[in-house]
């Protein structure tokens, strides 16, 4: 392998203070992957100080000039699309088409927020005639962005673009197994006009680097995407610091299919819902609630569509050996709980795939909503089918979950579609589709799925705070 990937601090590549590195693993082959620097609190301190030093200048840069830099970053992400997509697929194992789509999405985040820099930032309030009273939205300062390995560049862009548009500076920490595209984003940012220190990246493990970011006294906000236990750990540190957070955690999202739905389309969407990115997506539709009168027919359609998805072709590997073992542990739990694997439930026997971290796309029936495989986020291509009789029962099952990220409703009765969508405890609900979302739509969770919202104009409110100013015009 080539030289290890370095941190990006104050506009340049910087090795770890301690010099430690981590050997990567290619998830498709189990062979060697990218070697990355392993940072420590000392590297985080260097990066946070750079970000803090750049904060005032960036905040007071003319808003349109800030927007022009973000727009230039968007164009560069598209110009470098092939290179970035190849890098992402090598690190994550995901099909190239998926990486390409995700990086296009990253470019959209920068394009969208570039055009929002001149959004009115506050209000002028009418209190009484001799006072001029107004509010301002101010950047928070240094924002920590801690992202996972499932959509590396896309999720970094999702947090960084609005944070930069709102006038903050950033210290980002990508997952150690998928760091390359985030460093590439920081480098592109510097090349396209972000002043040194505005966008920094520190590589390494969450326990070391992530913790140091959350603890650093100059960090004023952390956006974290990842698991519930780590989100809780960050929350505990943040409680002591009174640090605002955006937490985008897990899901066990219900996809409700009524008998009057377009069943053929619903089946294809239901399969896409749990197999996209090999199920390694927080918004996967992993609980398929099916009206009992169509249960047999619909299950057969889902199983048939799932059989067509071949590991190593349409479906990539699990990201790491650890995640691969986790999914296999849930296969054993499912068997112990008495669930029936209608398809899948193991690793593919294909010898070409033996060295990679592949699992079979899996559909379980014979499942009740109290089983662990119906309650816990597996983060693999695994769906459970649970029957229901009535609309009320479907809603109750959907909401009987620790999570509340996404919901789906398939029906031809539009009144029911709206009733159910508004009854589901989740940050977003899709009707007669799955994951038809875009940069304009705010995204986030209820309950253990987190709080705060990313995307849309709403995200800017989570990267700024409001100040009220009152000025006397006349009199004493």
């Amino acid at each position, binding site marked *: 392998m080539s030289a290890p990937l370095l941190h990006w601090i104050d506009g340049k590549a910087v090795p770890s203070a301690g010099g430690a590195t981590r050997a990567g693993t290619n998830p498709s082959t189990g062979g060697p992957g990218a070697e990355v620097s392993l940072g420590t609190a000392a590297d985080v301190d260097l990066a946070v100080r750079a970000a803090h030093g750049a904060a005032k200048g960036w905040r*007071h840069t*003319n*808003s*349109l*000039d800030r927007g022009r830099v973000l727009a230039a970053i968007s164009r560069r992400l598209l110009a470098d699309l092939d290179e970035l997509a190849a890098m992402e697929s090598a690190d994550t194992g995901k099909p190239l088409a998926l990486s390409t789509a995700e990086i296009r999405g990253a470019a959209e985040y920068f394009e969208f927020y570039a055009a929002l*820099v*001149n959004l*009115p*930032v*506050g*209000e*002028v*309030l*009418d*209190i*009484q*005639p001799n006072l001029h009273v*107004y*509010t*301002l939205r101010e950047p928070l300062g240094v924002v920590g962005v801690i992202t996972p390995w499932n959509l590396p560049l896309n999720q970094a862009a999702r947090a960084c673009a609005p944070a930069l548009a709102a006038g903050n500076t950033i210290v980002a920490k990508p997952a150690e197994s998928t760091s390359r595209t985030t460093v590439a984003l920081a480098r592109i940012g510097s090349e396209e006009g972000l002043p040194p220190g505005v966008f920094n990246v520190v590589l390494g493990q969450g326990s070391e680097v992530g913790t140091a970011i959350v603890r650093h006294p100059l960090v004023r906000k952390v956006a974290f995407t990842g698991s519930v236990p780590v989100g809780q750990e960050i929350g505990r540190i943040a409680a002591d610091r009174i640090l605002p957070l955006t937490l985008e955690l897990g899901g066990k999202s219900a996809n409700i299919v009524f008998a009057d739905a377009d069943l053929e389309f619903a089946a294809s969407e239901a399969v896409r819902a749990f197999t996209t990115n090999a199920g390694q997506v927080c918004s996967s539709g992993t609980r398929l609630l099916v009206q009992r009168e169509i249960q047999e027919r619909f299950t057969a359609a889902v199983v048939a569509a799932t059989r067509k998805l071949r590991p190593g072709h349409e479906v990539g590997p699990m990201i790491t050996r650890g995640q691969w073992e986790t999914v296999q542990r849930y296969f054993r739990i499912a068997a112990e709980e008495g669930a029936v694997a209608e398809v899948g439930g193991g690793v593919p026997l294909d010898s070409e795939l033996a060295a990679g971290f592949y699992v079979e796309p899996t559909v379980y029936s014979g499942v009740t909503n109290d089983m662990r495989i119906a309650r816990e986020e597996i983060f693999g291509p695994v769906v459970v089918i649970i029957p229901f009789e009535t609309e009320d029962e479907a809603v109750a099952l959907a909401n009987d979950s620790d999570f509340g990220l996404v919901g789906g409703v398939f029906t031809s009765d539009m009144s029911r579609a709206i009733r159910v969508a508004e009854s589901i405890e989740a940050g977003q609900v899709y009707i007669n589709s799955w994951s038809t979302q875009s940069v304009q739509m705010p995204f986030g969770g209820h309950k253990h799925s987190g709080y705060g919202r990313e995307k849309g104009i709403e995200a800017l409110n989570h990267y700024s705070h409001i100040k009220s100013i009152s000025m006397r015009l006349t009199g004493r």
Partner: protein
Amino acid sequence: MTDGQFAPTVHDDIELARKMLIGGEWVGAISGKTFPVYDPADGRVIVEVPAGDAADVDRAVAAARAAFAPGGPWRSMTPQARGKLIWKLADLVEQNAERLSMLDSIDSGKPINEMRFFDVPFSVDVLRYYAGWPTKITGDTIPISYPAASGGRFHAYTLKEPVGVVGAIVPWNLPLLMAIKKLAPALATGCTVVIKPAKQTPISIALLAWRCEGSFTLNIAVIGSNITGLKRTRIRPPTA
């Protein structure tokens, strides 16, 4: 109007329509002319009301404009105080619901229950809704980029200001409600108002104006008449 046509209290309310309320005074048309309002149920004359013309409009607009003068009590009022007045107007409509219902029923001919269960309660809702708005009318603060002063810092903001005198021309199908739908938002934003009710249905507005006047001074100039000149001449500001 035939004696004994209406109950004495209703008769008194109807009598209010013989004058217009302009600048806090009850006045007839400058020309002295009047015209009859008919009861559509039997064709009988209910009351003779002033036949205003452009001169009366000038007088009403001048009064409304004077009430809008900067530094005057209406313009100096806090948004909270303006909201309270509109809330009070809602209370007045509610307290006088039966009387207002009777008047609109008499001169529009609609069954009184339509007034009791729709026009009047809806009018109250409209007023209460807009009573909450004066404290929430805001401008924006805007992060401008000024190319000629790159790097400069600016305080740029917008204000939503009242437009001034508002003319409210109201039809006969929902006489009270249509007037209030125009009156409430205009008052909430700090405007002053000249109302011209329909020639067929001017009576309920006269009662409303009278009840307002009796309780507090709303700077509304109500011109309760058929302004025949209105179709030919525009409402224009008074000559100074």
